[in-house]
């Protein structure tokens, strides 16, 4: 099957900032592909290139086999874009917003109406469809924005940080909406800096940093390939935390991480089971009482850490950075 996205050697430079540095990506149809990376990794620049908004300096880019630079108009017929901001009109109702985009996609009045009703149902806004969007919550706006990208029946949906700035409940609702789409067979490229999001939604995860791909695969493959497991220890008394850290430091690939709130110390290790036995023995000998000790697979966060040597952007949905990719100067060029 033709890949839904095929990108080779994509470069894009804004002044001194190299937003994309030879990015390679092939996204297979019938699945969600997540671009995972910190702010400024070039995620938005890439999505905007696919959406025909940004023209890369060099490289080859095809969407469903169509040359993006040669036939951008054809590409626009098969994509739906939901950017980082909910770009819906507050002075129109949800229904009017969807109808507006549907008409622009070239649907006639009746077809637009049908598509609008279908999408409203799908994104769970059928009851709120006649309310002005300015009365919507942030989560509802994001869902409507998702709906707007969908109403033209695209083959490829581009979602740029779809849940940035949403509270956990709205995030889950949006995830459900995205999962429903996927079940219906729309191909999705989504960018995210939330590992959980990539883990939850994507079949393929492409890790990007500094404008190039660092690694790609299913979440499981990435975790396997990092070749590490994580030992996690929770002492009964907080006073034992320094001892635990010391012991874990002696077996870990990098300094252990301590979460004071949950009183857990974690460290990535190679050869998990043996090291776990060692750690358990040493802690026992030193008289540290444990609530919990175990070996688990690494999170994508830890995979990212092991690949780049630095942590990903703080995974905190409550404190998003709305300006997003630093590599995308708004009007500065």
């Amino acid at each position, binding site marked *: 099957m033709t890949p839904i996205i095929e990108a080779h050697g994509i470069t894009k430079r804004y002044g001194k900032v190299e937003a994309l540095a030879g990015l390679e990506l092939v996204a297979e149809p019938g699945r969600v592909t997540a671009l995972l990376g910190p702010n400024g990794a070039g995620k938005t620049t890439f999505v905007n290139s696919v959406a025909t908004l940004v023209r890369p300096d060099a490289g080859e880019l095809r969407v469903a086999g169509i040359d993006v630079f040669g036939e*951008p108009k054809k590409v*626009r*017929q098969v994509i739906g874009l939901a950017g980082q901001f909910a*770009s819906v009109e507050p*002075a*129109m109702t949800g229904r009017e917003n969807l109808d*507006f985009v549907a008409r622009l996609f*070239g649907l006639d009045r009746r077809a637009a109406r049908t598509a609008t009703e279908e999408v409203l149902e799908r994104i769970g806004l059928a009851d709120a469809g006649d309310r002005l969007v300015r009365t919507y919550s942030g989560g509802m706006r994001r869902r409507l924005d998702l709906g707007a990208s969908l109403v033209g029946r695209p*083959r490829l949906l581009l979602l740029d940080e779809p849940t940035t700035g949403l509270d956990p409940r709205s995030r889950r609702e949006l995830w459900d909406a995205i999962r429903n789409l996927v079940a219906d067979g729309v191909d999705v490229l989504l960018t995210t800096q939330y590992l959980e999001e990539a883990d939850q939604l994507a079949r393929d995860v492409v890790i990007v940093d500094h404008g190039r791909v660092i690694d790609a695969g299913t979440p499981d493959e990435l975790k396997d390939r990092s070749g590490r497991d994580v030992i996690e220890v929770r002492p009964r008394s907080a006073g034992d935390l320094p001892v635990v850290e010391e012991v874990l430091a002696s077996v870990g690939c990098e300094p252990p991480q301590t979460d004071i709130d949950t009183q857990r110390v974690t460290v990535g290790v190679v050869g998990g089971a043996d090291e776990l036995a060692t750690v358990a023995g040493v802690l026992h000998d030193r008289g540290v009482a444990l609530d919990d000790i175990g070996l688990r697979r690494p999170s994508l966060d830890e995979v990212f850490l092991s690949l780049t040597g630095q942590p990903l952007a703080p995974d905190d949905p409550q404190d998003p950075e709305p300006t997003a990719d630093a590599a995308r100067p708004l*009007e500065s060029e």
Partner: protein
Amino acid sequence: MTALTTSPATEAGLIPSAQMQPRGASFLTATGQAARRTLLQYLRTPQLIVLPTVTSVLFLFMFRYIFGGAITTGTRGIDYVDFLIPGFVATAILWTGMSATSGVAEDALSGVHDRLRSLPIPRASVLAGRSLADTALITWTLLVNLGLGYAVGFRAHAGFGSVVLAFGVMLVASLAFSWVFISVGLWAGNAQAAQGMATLWVVPLTFVSSAYVPVHSMPGWMQAFAKNQPVTAVINASRSLMLGGSQAAGVGHSTSYWVVIALAASVGILVVFGGIAVARFARTR
């Protein structure tokens, strides 16, 4: 495309076959939709309509009743109120049109333009729709302002047909200037900067014109600008038409001279700024 017809998506009926794939709206449809969106913004955000009207009233009272007594028109038989109103109405093109800059800047910043540029439509249609909607809003303001003018004592000295003609000239100018405001909005970067940048040239263009005081009362160097700028041409054409001839209006050249100059200037502005705006909007970054 054979691969597509066998994909599960097609079976589920979500993705139509290639022939049914929407091809994108025509220029006219897209322009209409874009205009409708902006008009709904105006209609459902009353302060966008009410504020310019209130500002107009303040302006009118200021010039009619505060400064008006001290200003002589220098043309025999023309009261200041008759001199003022055509200029007052014509300059409302700029004072009202200005609000488009912040609206356009907001659309650019909030991702609306990105979404619209990712759609299969002629990109110029988005701006054409905006321009039409803005012209509609300006038309409304011009009518209200003319009504206000009558309320404070203005009377057209010419027939109804001439007043309609004057209105026609102002409409063409409105359409032209809306593209200037759209251009400013696209370049500004944010709504506040847009508003500031618009004020920066609206103030000199309206005040250093024949709108509120006779140009011959200004210092010579200023007259040079005031006499030869497009807003003055639009004002003089309207004034001449409404007051029944260039003699009566004291505008020097003949009525048709001013009408031709006003229309030519408008077309020039339309072409130049239309081009600038569309190029800016359609560019890939």
